[in-house]
């Protein structure tokens, strides 16, 4: 029981941090306005951290609550479809990548970032019934790799600091 309370408190806390990071990312100016969709993926720092610290189940919980709150606060039903697709692809591939045990958090984060872009592009292709936007994926893969390295490094530093703290 006591352990449960502690877990809920911590999950609530990290969800709040993920939400703040979503907001920070939303108010940042576009990095390269000619190519929309380039993002750092700040909230993914938290998702990867939880994925490594306590596991997939909690990562899904935090991610789902974050998506719902973001849609409620600064999005709409349309943006929710995109972000859910991105998050599902990202979490699924990151989990797979973590399981094969070939990469560090940085590699997992790169895969997560690119999977996020891929999920969103696929949804866009389905909604617009066009494959012409597929080449976007090439540009987004490069920027996603750079962003993934950054996110992975930050997440591994946080994980290290929390090494002695049990969640």
């Amino acid at each position, binding site marked *: 029981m006591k352990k449960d309370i502690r877990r809920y408190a911590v999950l609530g806390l990290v969800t709040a941090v993920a939400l703040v990071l979503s907001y920070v990312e939303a108010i940042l100016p576009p990095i390269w306005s000619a190519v929309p969709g380039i993002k750092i993926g700040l909230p993914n720092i938290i998702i990867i951290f939880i994925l490594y610290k306590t596991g997939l189940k909690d990562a899904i919980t935090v991610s789902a609550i974050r998506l719902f709150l973001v849609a409620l606060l600064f999005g709409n039903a349309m943006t929710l479809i995109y972000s859910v697709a991105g998050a599902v692809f990202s979490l699924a591939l990151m989990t797979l990548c973590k399981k094969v045990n070939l990469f560090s958090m940085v590699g997992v984060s790169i895969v997560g970032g690119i999977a996020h872009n891929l999920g969103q592009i696929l949804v866009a292709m389905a909604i617009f019934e066009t494959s012409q936007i597929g*080449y976007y994926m*090439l540009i987004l893969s490069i920027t996603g790799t750079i962003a993934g*390295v950054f996110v992975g490094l930050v997440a591994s530093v946080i994980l290290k600091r929390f090494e002695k703290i049990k969640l």
Partner: protein
Amino acid sequence: MKNNNSQKNQKLRNDIILAVVIVLIATAGLLLFVFNREQGTTVSVKVNGTQIASYPLAENREVPIKTGDNDEHINVLVIKDGKASISEADCPDKICVETRAVSYAGETVVCLPHKLVIEITNQNADGGIDVAV
């Protein structure tokens, strides 16, 4: 401990290989795309996946396009000097307005909130606006 370290180095190496491979493939794909593209002739306007109009890229014009489920929104398409762009829109993110003007076949300007796609093609324009279904 030593074993742990070598495993760490191995993973770091894999990370770097992963990053380099992705960037190389993406760059090669982009180069291929850039060298193979050709100037388009026609601007095609799609709302909700349905083409509602197309215009020749050679003629300058400014067209307000009604978007949204009940035509309640608007995006203004501008064709100028052989390039197409969106000059104005009442969408929340304004990403379509910020997207640079397009002129090569296959290039698009997309407004996600209004489900609008402006696409450059090589087919001939059919002129006016058809009724959106």
